[in-house]
């Protein structure tokens, strides 16, 4: 019963939050709602016994990714309402609705069959983080390392893109160095 209550609560809140994200004209609303939705999704993961994934969702998505967004939004004017020239709104909903319908069909289809065999079965008596670790560092080691490298590259790219002249400290300069630099620039 608890599971059902939790599931329906989470579903309702997530859907509501994401709808706000998609429909709101205020970027800050959208961002806050998205963050809230992410937290709710971690709730789903806890329901699904994927504790580690849930925590990762909170730490990485909510704690880092959305914070990044928020930080980025500080560069943009967030208090102003977002003006968007939205064309053919009905088409949008039609397209999305159709896709959703077909997706549901496509997703539910394999459930009818029972040909699915677990590839990496969950071992009884092993806690989720441990099980995840075992699979992650054996079968998925190479993708894991690749993901790590990709993150590193992305981080460096982000720094380089967003931060120009980051190596200059405005406060650490010795007196007179400023003048010298100005002269040099002239």
């Amino acid at each position: 019963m608890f599971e059902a209550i939790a599931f329906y609560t989470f579903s309702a809140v997530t859907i509501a939050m994401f709808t706000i994200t998609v429909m709101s004209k205020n970027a800050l609303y959208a961002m806050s709602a998205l963050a809230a939705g992410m937290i709710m999704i971690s709730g789903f993961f806890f329901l699904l016994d994927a504790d580690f994934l849930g925590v990762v969702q909170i730490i990485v998505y909510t704690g880092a990714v959305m914070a990044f967004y928020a930080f980025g939004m500080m560069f943009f004017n967030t208090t102003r309402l977002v003006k968007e020239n939205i064309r053919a709104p009905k088409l949008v909903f039609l397209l999305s609705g159709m896709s959703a319908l077909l997706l549901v069909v496509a997703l539910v289809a394999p459930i009818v069959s029972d040909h699915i065999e677990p590839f990496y079965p969950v071992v009884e008596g092993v806690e989720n983080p441990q099980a995840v670790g075992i699979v992650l560092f054996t079968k998925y080691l190479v993708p894991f390392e690749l993901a790590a490298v990709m993150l590193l590259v992305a981080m460096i790219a982000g720094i380089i893109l967003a931060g120009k002249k980051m190596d200059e400290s405005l406060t650490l300069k010795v007196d007179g160095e400023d003048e010298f630099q100005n002269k040099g620039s002239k």
Partner: protein
Amino acid sequence: MITLSHYLIVSAILFCIGLVGVYRRKNLLLLLFSTEILLNAVNIGFAAVSKFYGDLTGQMFAFFIVAVAASEVAVGLGLFIVWYKRRGTLDVDSMQSMHG
């Protein structure tokens, strides 16, 4: 009793919401928000399948999706900031310099 179908349907609905956002939004930042919704919707589906079939592969994929999303944000946001510094707007309709 909550079954796999429940989760998958929620996942599909969330995905659909994300799609609406992707089609509808003109502001790049909000567009990226919508893609995050798409990714998360898929994550739920993966985790659910993983649970109900007792297979960890689904969770693995969810992890990698999280990693991809994180790097996407780092690069994407950097690009946005550069773009905003130059143009003062993030409207998709303003970026048509590559049109044929």
